[in-house]
């Protein structure tokens, strides 16, 4: 099992969610986060005073999938979140030791 963490532009969340639904992924957790990579922040001007806002709003999606479909899910997220412009985000893939469903106590892939 793998955990996929994807940081994307907020306005792309619906596209990503629908894309994942198409390939049968129904569960995910999202966070509203702030950050920057190479894109850096943006500038705001109030009465001549310029402020550089370093951290700009992003959405972070977390989902756990079986190792067999990782490539497919990553490709789907990449395609649906891609605008071709700087600041599109990053996808991280991490190993997951176990998953437990709270209601039934199932372990492993069955609990996803």
């Amino acid at each position, binding site marked *: 099992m793998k955990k996929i963490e994807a940081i994307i532009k907020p306005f792309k969340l619906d596209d990503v969610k629908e894309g994942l639904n198409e390939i049968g992924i129904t569960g995910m957790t999202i966070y509203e986060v702030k950050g920057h990579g190479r894109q850096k922040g943006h500038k*705001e*001007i*109030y*009465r*001549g*005073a*310029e*402020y550089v*806002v370093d951290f700009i709003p992003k959405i972070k999606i977390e989902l756990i999938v079986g190792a067999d479909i990782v490539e497919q899910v990553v490709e789907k997220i990449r395609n649906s979140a891609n605008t071709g412009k700087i600041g599109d985000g990053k996808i991280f893939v991490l190993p997951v030791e176990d998953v437990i469903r709270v209601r039934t106590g199932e372990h492993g892939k069955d609990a996803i």
Partner: protein
Amino acid sequence: MNSGDTSFMLLATALVMFMTPGLALFYGGLVRQKNVLATIMHSIFCLGIISIIWVLYGYSLAFGPDIGGIVGNLDLIGLKGVGLDPGPYADTIPGLLFCAFQLMFAIITPALISGAYAERMKFSAFLLFTVLWSTFVYMPVCHWVWGQGGWLGRLGALDFAGGTVIHINSACAAFAAAVFMGKRKGWGQEALHPHNLPMTILGSGILWIGWFGFNAGSALTAGKIATLAFFTTQIAAGCALMSWVAAEWIIQGKPTTLGAASGAVAGLVAVTPAAGFVGPVSAIIIGLIAGALCYCAIFLKTRFGYDDALDVVAVHGVGGLWGALATGLFASLYWNPDGADGLFFGNPNQFLIQAAGAGASIAYSLVVSLIILKIVDTAVGLRVSEEDEIMGLDLSQHSEIGYTQ
């Protein structure tokens, strides 16, 4: 007594009153969320305290029988003798109506200062400062220019609706307060952003409409000069709006809505002393210069390191000074036979008189404001504690918050 003039002045008076809540919104949107109510209160409370002072002794100090050209005496204390018959200041409206109109000016002037000390002054200190400043700065300077026998008025200084009395006067107190009180915590290190620009823009719109009462009403009759003042007010405000935005677009790369709102106010300030003395083309020039000049003036506080939080000095001080001088340049007997010709119409002397009037008011307001600040600081302390400042004045001074989380 003229019923047309009376009804016009009743409405103009109400319009000027409306400027103070407009200013509350204008300033309220520019501060951080945690200080919005305290900032609004600084304007709103003046509607209360100054009304009482005005009736008790304020009108008498400003418009009572003259003492040496400096101040009115106390003959009109409690508005004794100010009645419903036309008074010495206006032939066609009740004396009490002139008194009411002038009251609204006395209310908004100390409220204007609050932009400089926003986000850090104790409410008790604000109250004491406002009472003392109105008494010892506003009332005398108002008498100098508009009171019968006032020395600036006798000298021939032209101040149609209060560029010197209201704007230069309050901006000098604002500068004194910003310097004396010191900077807000975090100034120059963290971003002290406006929290609600739509509120500020709404406020500037209310100021703009109120300014028609302010400037046109200063004619005191509903006739030619009121119309001239009304028209020049609109033209100068529109031109200054454009030139502020143009200047920031060229220098910083983006036209901003706050720039548009600030430019409009700068134009309204600049045309205030000139409104009933200059023609429409002069109003265009006054406005165009006011917007760009006041935009450049906002950089002074960073350059010299004083925290004039909401730019009272740049907008009201520099705009007011430009307006006072511009009146000496552009005033024309063609437009107002009761006024004077300015430098550009062959009378350089008028320019010198305007400069002297502005200079005297700057010096007096700076010095007396500093003395008053020192007294208030000794008596109750001007600034809130660091803890209260971080918490915000809304909670620490008023136990309220502007917005639920």
